[in-house]
């Protein structure tokens, strides 16, 4: 097991202000190629974990280690390079509305300065994989929710990140599209990426049968290898 591309949370506490503690003394490790779901009620701290991994937020206390980075100590100027190791998927898709499907995905390669030749080759391949090769020149507003999320997944996976973080990726989707997205995440996991899925969709969790970390009020109340969706203590 390669220790370097594990994700480690050590005694993480995050308070936004003195009245609200989002996470309290949370510790866990995620191993390479793992598929981990994080469940909990709204406000239980799921999104905070996601934001700490993407370094949108810094922990108030504790250390986060990923790859060769001590994430809690990253300087602002180091963030772009660090974030290229992570693919992110959100409930609200977060596509660039002024760019076509092709350009949205190409953007993730362009920020790394990859040559145009590679981009022209890779982007259609990925779009083919998520079943959107016929929508390459469409703009996001011309797509359905499921299609938008597949574009977001394509963007997240294009530079073969070590980890993909998905925050409620199916929250805005119908059951059919939900399963399409989950199947894609499973495929990515098989291809070698760590998947961190924050969700409160019981059906998904119970069907996946992977590791589940359950949060309540900012604390881990359960961390099971083949977990189920149980929110009560």
């Amino acid at each position: 097991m390669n220790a370097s591309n594990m994700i480690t949370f050590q005694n993480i506490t995050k308070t936004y202000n003195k009245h609200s503690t989002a996470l309290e003394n949370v510790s866990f490790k995620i191993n390479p190629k793992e598929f981990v779901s994080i469940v909990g009620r709204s406000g239980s701290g799921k999104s905070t974990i996601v934001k700490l991994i993407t370094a949108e937020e810094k922990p108030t206390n504790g250390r986060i280690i990923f790859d060769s980075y001590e994430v809690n100590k990253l300087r602002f100027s180091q963030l772009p390079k660090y974030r290229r190791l992570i693919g992110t998927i959100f409930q609200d898709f977060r596509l660039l509305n002024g760019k076509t499907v092709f350009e949205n995905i190409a953007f993730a390669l362009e920020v790394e300065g990859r040559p145009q030749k590679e981009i022209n080759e890779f982007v259609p391949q990925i779009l083919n994989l998520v079943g959107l090769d016929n929508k390459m020149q469409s703009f996001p507003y011309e797509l359905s929710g499921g299609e938008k999320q597949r574009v977001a997944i394509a963007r997240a996976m294009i530079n073969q990140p070590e980890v993909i973080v998905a925050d409620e990726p199916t929250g805005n989707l119908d059951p059919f599209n939900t399963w399409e997205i989950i199947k894609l995440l499973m495929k990515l996991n098989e291809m070698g990426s760590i998947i961190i899925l924050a969700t409160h969709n019981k059906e998904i969790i119970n069907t996946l049968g992977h590791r589940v970390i359950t949060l309540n009020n900012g604390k881990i109340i359960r961390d099971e290898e083949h977990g189920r969706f149980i929110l009560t203590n």
Partner: protein
Amino acid sequence: MFVAFSRIIKYGFQNFLRNGWLSTATIAVIFLTLFVLQGLIIFNVVAKTAIASVQNKIDISVYFKSNAAEDAILKLQKSLEGLSEVKKAEYISREKALTEFQARRKNDPIVIAAIQELGENPLLASLNIKAYNPKEYAAISAYLNNESLSSIIEKVSYAQNQVVIERLINIVDAAKRGGIVLTFIIAIIAILVTFNTIRLAIYSNKDAIGIMRLVGASNNFIRGPYIIEGILYGILAGVLSFAIFAPLVAYIAPHVASFIPEINLQNYFAANFLRLLSYQLIFGIALSSISSFVAVHRYLKV
């Protein structure tokens, strides 16, 4: 490096074209700003000429006693011209004064007849003095009130015109100060309006900027296209404002000239064509690209 740069330029143009309406509206505002600033430049040129022309009309005259020797007057003229405050001291002899008077009143037969009746020249010789700065007239007048000159000097016109001269000095001062303040205020307003317009245009891209940060784009890669867009706004607005200003100047030039004959706006515009155009472009580009830079900066903190 070069790849990133060419992508920044490409995206700058692409955003500009895809946000057609936003670009048009932003250019319109920058155009108005540049137009106002161009107007201020022209206004200042006109005002300066007008003020100079008013100043030029202020002078004082020294009238000499009819028995004063011409030598003494010419000596005084020399010494006056030696003063650093004095721009010009023109000698008008009694004969010249009479000829000029008659020429002025040639349509007034009663006056002409009266002078002929008189049989001798009733006018006095004089020195017409112009100072560089109207404020110096008091000092020059004091110099002329010297005891030693009282034997030849009949009177100094400053005493009669003192109030008018002082009032004119005040008006000229106020006009200068007013011009500066007006220019300053209007320029500030124009700049703030442009800055806010660009800020709003970029505010609508707030989410996109955050997304780009999360995908791992560096600040320069995010900011670059917005600055390119800003430069495009500046160039187009500058050219547009100049293209509309040129014929406008040609149109108003004769009207301005009828008020202030000393100025030929069209010649001024033609002679300073390149300078004015580059002011427009430099100012337009600087204003919009700096505004873009500052506006984007706020949203890069993700």
